[in-house]
């Protein structure tokens, strides 16, 4: 297992119930697999208009593979400006 840091912004902080948490995931876990598991645990995430993932301050694709100590960030629909 590896450990990643999950950060939750905007509405995802309300859904997950915390801003930051540490999560253990399998070695080789993709962003897709990570999100699938997270949506099982927090079905309200399915209601969002979109949900992107950033790892270490960059947007990543579903196929991106997580590494130990990655900072994984939930990006619900942005609304700056």
């Amino acid at each position: 297992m590896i450990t990643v840091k999950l950060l939750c912004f905007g509405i995802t902080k309300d859904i997950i119930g915390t801003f930051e948490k540490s999560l253990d995931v399998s070695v080789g876990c993709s962003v897709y697999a990570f999100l699938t598991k997270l949506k099982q645990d927090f079905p309200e995430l399915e209601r969002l208009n979109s949900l992107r993932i950033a790892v270490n301050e960059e947007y990543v694709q579903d196929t991106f593979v997580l590494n130990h100590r990655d900072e994984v960030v939930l990006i619900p629909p942005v609304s700056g400006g």
Partner: protein
Amino acid sequence: MANSEKNIEIVLSKQALDLSACQAFVESPDCGGLVHFVGTVRNHTKGLKVLSLDFEAYEPMAISEMRKIAEQAVEIFSIRKIAIHHRVGLLQIGEIPVIISVSSHHRKAAFEACQYAIDTLKETVPIWKKEILENGEVWVSATP
């Protein structure tokens, strides 16, 4: 929080934004046209009265995404300078969440680059606003 290069200035700040400072950054003796976009907090949304807006940012990435937009704008539209300033925290009606300022030799490019920058900012920069309404709070655009 500020970060500047020769022709790009990115600011993410808890303090009130300053149009004069943006004007001063982008103006250049070899440019004839400056365009500013200034966002302001509206007092209504979908028929509901808005009391204030609370802006939250994933700060390091918000800054790097704003910088990418600025670099792309310089590249695509051959503009001279661009400043992108965004506010975070609680804003009242009429306050300014964002200013984008562009200078260019040709004014058409300045208009296009400024519009490109605000359109893209609203799609890619990790900043979220929560509307404080009379009867509750809503994260803007989060759900249908």
